[in-house]
């Protein structure tokens, strides 16, 4: 196995393209190093992207925010403007692991690891986040939702790298939120995750909404029926009941010792409703 530490993304892509065996991008390594310790791990090449110029930067532009693929999640929580604009995305990213894991883990790595329970992914999908992907042919932008295709699988080619994740500039009256259920309060994998992102008009009526569930299907579930229940309404009891019912109906989880199907379906509804309430409050709405 070789370790390479290129300083340009072109060089990193070239190394991946030329490798004649399994090759891996290394960001924070909090998934990859655990896998490397397994007996069945086989790699010819590991390409560390943390020395690539600009990859460790969060840039605020007129269009929104660009979060480099080497930015550790802890730095998201330290970025005041990002926290103010996308509190739900940041709280989701900051739920990953411990303080030690936060120092290293990235949202791009969370996305590319393609775990159904990845915490930052529902929040990014709700926020309409996009990924800038660089390969031998140049760069392309795709929706974050189109990166994971199945547990452990992504739509990226073996010589493609996520360079950055972009978040749009939020509307004036908008808010997002992420909640998860875990058996322990810290250091545990989500049994259910729910993210909501919505915008309001001056009367507090929901104009646009995205409701996304994690950990209840092979990839995240965008619950259009829950969004439809929100749009055109204030957050009254009837709206919240409809959001809850839509989330429960959209949940399609596995059954295991950490949660039965019935339990996960119910929790998906509860968390969807609660996340909607938090997002609504953050958008300036009063119930």
């Amino acid at each position: 196995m070789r370790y390479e530490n290129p300083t340009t993304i072109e060089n990193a892509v070239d190394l991946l393209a030329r490798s004649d065996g399994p090759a891996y991008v290394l960001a924070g390594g909090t998934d990859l190093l655990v896998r490397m310790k397994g007996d069945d791990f086989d790699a010819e090449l590991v390409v560390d992207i943390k020395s690539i110029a600009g990859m460790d930067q969060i840039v605020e532009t007129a269009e929104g925010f660009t979060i480099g693929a080497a930015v550790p999640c802890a730095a998201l929580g330290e970025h005041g403007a990002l926290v103010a604009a996308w509190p739900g995305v940041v709280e989701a990213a900051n739920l990953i692991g411990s303080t030690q894991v936060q120092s290293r883990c990235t949202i791009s790595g969370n996305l590319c690891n393609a775990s159904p329970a990845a915490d930052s992914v529902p929040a990014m999908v709700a926020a309409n986040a996009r990924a800038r992907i660089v390969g031998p042919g140049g760069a392309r932008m795709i929706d974050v939702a189109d990166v994971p295709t199945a547990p452990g699988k992504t739509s990226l080619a073996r010589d493609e790298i996520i360079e950055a994740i972009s978040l749009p500039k939020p509307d004036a009256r908008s808010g997002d939120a992420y909640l998860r259920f875990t058996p322990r309060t810290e250091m545990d994998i989500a049994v259910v995750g729910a993210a909501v992102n919505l915008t309001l008009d001056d009367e507090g009526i929901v104009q646009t909404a995205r409701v996304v569930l994690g950990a209840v299907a092979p990839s995240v579930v965008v619950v259009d029926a829950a969004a439809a229940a929100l749009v055109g309404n204030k957050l009254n009891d009837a709206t919240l009941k409809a959001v809850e019912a839509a989330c429960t109906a959209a949940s399609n989880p596995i059954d295991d010792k950490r949660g039965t199907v019935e339990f996960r379906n119910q929790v998906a509804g509860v968390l969807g409703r609660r996340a909607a309430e938090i997002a609504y409050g953050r958008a300036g709405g009063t119930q």
Partner: protein
Amino acid sequence: MTSISVSTTINGDDVEFLCNVDETLLDVLRNRLGLMGAKEGCGTGDCGACSTIMDGRVVCSCLVLGAETQGREVETIEGMSDGRELHPLQVKFIEHAALQCGICTPGFLMAAKALLAAHPDPSEEEIRFWLAGNLCRCTGYDKIVRAVQDAAAEMRGANA
């Protein structure tokens, strides 16, 4: 497997070492540099016994490749005291009996040091969340939290 030559800074000293690609910082510290303070409890980022500080952030050294420390600044428990003068956190851990077998202690001390550098006056809740990635199987967490609170108060006083 070919070895990689790495130059880094550990506890303020320039250090050069050779390591294999799949060797972690924890392996390098313990097996190549004789720095045995960081412990391997799990090897998978769950227990925090291997905590060290890299470029100002506390990390699990079992989840960092030795090769990744090129050009970085690493702090380990061996650099915590000033010669024979213990760090306030070390003093308070002893005073509060915040250790029994001591396997978890270097990791707790490094994580707590990073906490107090970022938040000199943390609430009890902040301390407990910050240290949630450090497991202790014998002392219980209360004494550890009290020791950190006491050290924080003393360090704030010393800096005032």
